[in-house]
């Protein structure tokens, strides 16, 4: 008894230049926002980009990007539609706006299914919006996606960073590429997170100040890209590209 899906995942991802998982140890730190704006930033710099929302139980990148009325095309698998120039894939095409209560084994199956059926074609970057933590989705990606790199998001809170530290240690121990750490929602200058990141031998990529305009820009890509959040992330995106090359 063999699952034939596992055989074709490598082929499906084979023409993608760089695969970046945007991850964190904790929810609510802005992973989806970083993933969506990073994908838009790279696209606007002329790269071909895909965005895959793997946070099946709490997907949100479609809200950030204002994705409505799109649906993948069926063609020897499925081809994600373009959202603002990005090939965009999310379980919400199939779950609509309803809750998707999935246990770990279901999450694993759904990840394998989406990786096996989605035809990205040639891309410079695939950005993956990860669910929080070091559970099934993270372990599955480490198992299934060769050459993946992690961009890790934290907030200034040590509550968030303590979980991020565990994620960084795990990735380091497994020899997985870590691009660096982004500190989001910074409300006052502090070197605490930078020093913590550097203490464990990882790279601190920069901070994104808390942006009170961001909420009002949700779903409106032009407004989003004009926010302070987007301009802070643009500088970090340059560093991400350098680190990956």
């Amino acid at each position, binding site marked *: 008894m063999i*699952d034939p899906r596992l055989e074709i995942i490598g082929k499906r991802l084979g023409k993608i230049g760089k695969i970046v998982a945007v991850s964190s140890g904790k929810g609510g730190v802005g992973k989806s926002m970083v993933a969506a704006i990073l994908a838009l930033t790279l696209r606007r710099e002329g790269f071909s980009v895909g965005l895959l929302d793997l946070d099946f139980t709490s997907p949100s990148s479609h809200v950030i990007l204002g994705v409505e009325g799109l649906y993948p095309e069926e063609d020897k698998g499925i081809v994600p539609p373009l959202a603002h120039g990005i090939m965009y894939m999310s379980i919400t095409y199939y779950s609509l706006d309803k809750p998707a209560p999935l246990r770990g084994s279901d999450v694993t*199956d759904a990840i394998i299914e989406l990786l096996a059926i989605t035809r990205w074609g040639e891309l410079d970057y695939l950005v993956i919006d990860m669910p929080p933590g070091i559970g099934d989705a993270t372990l599955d990606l480490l198992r299934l996606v060769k050459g993946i790199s992690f961009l890790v998001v934290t907030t200034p809170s040590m509550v968030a960073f303590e979980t991020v530290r565990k994620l960084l240690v795990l990735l380091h121990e497994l020899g997985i590429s870590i691009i660096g750490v982004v500190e989001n929602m910074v409300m006052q200058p502090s070197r605490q997170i930078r020093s913590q990141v550097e203490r464990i031998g990882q790279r601190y990529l920069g901070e994104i100040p808390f942006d009170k305009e961001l909420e009002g820009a949700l779903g409106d890509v032009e407004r989003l890209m004009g926010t302070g959040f987007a301009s802070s992330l643009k500088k970090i995106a340059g560093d991400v590209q350098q680190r990956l090359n």
Partner: protein
Amino acid sequence: MAEGVVSTATKIAEEQGLEEVTEVTVRIGELQQIEHEVFSFALEQLRTPVMKNAKFVLETIPGKLRCRACGKEWLFSPEALGDEVSEAIHFVPEVAHVYVKCPSCGSPDFEIIEGRGVILASIKGVKGSD
């Protein structure tokens, strides 16, 4: 999915030293809702040289579900779900948890005991003479 079956069967044939594959048996879970005719056509288009004369045997495995909350077991019935929902489950069977509830207690927390996915069950063939 047919691509995965052919690719996996070809790889196994190479690993086992098969000169020719004579039969490939594929079990298709009912939740996947794949029409045999369409899947057979796809397999025919993708035949590799080692399986040029292979017979493809397709079997459907009924979808059997068990509620984790109350233990009720029941059979998946796509007819009651409508086209849009059926298509969603066809692409990603796990979204069944979005649309299907236990007929006894209404919980979405059920286990798919049988009938999920496409499984390469067996391949038969003739070994090389060396």
